[in-house]
């Protein structure tokens, strides 16, 4: 099983040189720490910044500089600031290449649910609906099952959905999977110590397992 750090590390391997990337709140934010240093990439924050840097040291904290998770941040050299409509113009226009975000459920056709639990949680969708409707590549970081063991990789989402047919790849605590264009999850890699059988048993949606499934290796 992968911990949150390992999920972030594994997702970081998907990042390609020259990409503009939007990282969601939670595990996706951690991905920034593991992007190989030889890659030139730029992180976008939908509240109005291209070029997110590391968290500030205590003396560099600026209340006028936060990310979409409301965390204090810094800017790298070559950053640009803009307003919210310009930020989502950038997202909606397909200029951001990769979006990494969390999910409560993903369906076998790539639908994602991550914004609402009826009667329980009403936080709002924030920018997630715009992001999933726009980015050409969407990678989801999530737990494979709920705390009571129910699969979160489903035939159909049970929760109100955030976007349809948009998720391309999923990294869970158990596995790396592609969402196939024709529907269905395709198993690509197993977490260390996790068997194919366990992944099969914990995936409710259609799962394709072809040939040997390699185990992920971490340094």
């Amino acid at each position, binding site marked *: 099983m992968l911990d949150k750090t390992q999920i972030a590390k594994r997702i970081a391997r998907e990042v390609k040189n020259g990409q503009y990337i939007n990282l969601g709140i939670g595990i996706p934010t951690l991905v920034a720490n593991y992007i190989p240093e030889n890659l030139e990439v730029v992180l976008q*924050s*939908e*509240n*109005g*910044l291209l070029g997110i840097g*590391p*968290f*500030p*040291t*205590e003396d560099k*904290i*600026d*209340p*006028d*500089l*936060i*990310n*979409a*998770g*409301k*965390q*204090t*941040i810094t800017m790298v050299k070559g950053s640009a*600031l*803009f*307003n*919210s*409509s310009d*930020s*989502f*113009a950038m*997202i*909606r226009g397909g200029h951001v290449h990769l979006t990494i975000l969390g999910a409560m459920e993903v369906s076998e056709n790539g*639908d994602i649910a991550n914004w609402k639990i009826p*009667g329980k949680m*009403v*936080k*709002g*969708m*924030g*920018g*997630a*609906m*715009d992001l999933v*409707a*726009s980015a050409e590549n969407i990678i989801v970081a999530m737990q494979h099952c709920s705390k009571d063991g129910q699969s979160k990789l489903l035939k159909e989402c049970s929760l*109100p*959905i*955030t*976007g*349809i047919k948009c998720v391309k790849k999923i990294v869970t605590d158990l596995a790396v999977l592609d969402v196939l264009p024709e529907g269905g999850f395709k198993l690509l890699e197993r977490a260390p110590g996790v068997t194919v059988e366990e992944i099969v048993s914990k995936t409710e949606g259609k799962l394709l397992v072809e040939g040997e499934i390699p185990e992920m290796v971490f340094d």
Partner: protein
Amino acid sequence: MITKTVTNAAEAVRDVVSDSVLMFGGFGLCGIPENCIQALLQKDLTGLTCISNNAGVDDFGIGLMLKKRMVKKMISSYVGENAEFERQLLSGELEVDLIPQGTLAERIRAGGAGIPAFFTPAGVGTEVAEGKEMREFDGKMYLMEKGLKADFAFVKAWKGDTAGNLIFKGTARNFNPMMATAGKITIAEVEELVPAGQLDPNHIHTPGIYVQRIFQGVDYEKRIEQRTVSKG
């Protein structure tokens, strides 16, 4: 040049009445019009519709207006930081219209720009699409969304001049520039107010035409929601 200066927040909000539609700039607590919110709290207002990306926190920002039951309806994209908000919503005391953040931003821009409606892919296939016109362009489905305006827009800038020109700092810009365009009356509070002519015209984010009243704010708290530091 037309002069827009007023003395302070109380004078700026003098004619805001109950049941008005108000816009508030800010993302979380970053770039919110703290002085105007304080001045509104001093007035005996009810039935307000507030358009703001977030709803503040329990004891700061728009959260204080919710606590005082001034707000009938919130139009926002994310309200997760406010427990009082969630309580009023679940109990049915508060109407809430949750809108995708990019759609909210673009609807406000459209409202200010004389564009009554536009198409966006955000929300297609979700409950956001319910009751909305759908249309396909180049093989992809889109929703029609309408422009959004307000009786008063409250914005916070870093620097401003007496002509109403505004410059924002960092990510405190966020929704402020679009909201400035969409208020019938736009009230700007700034950290530093200078005479017209001192700001470089190339650097202005919001031209003064959009601002009806401007004043230099006082005592900014600029509360941080998620103070996150690295060891350096």
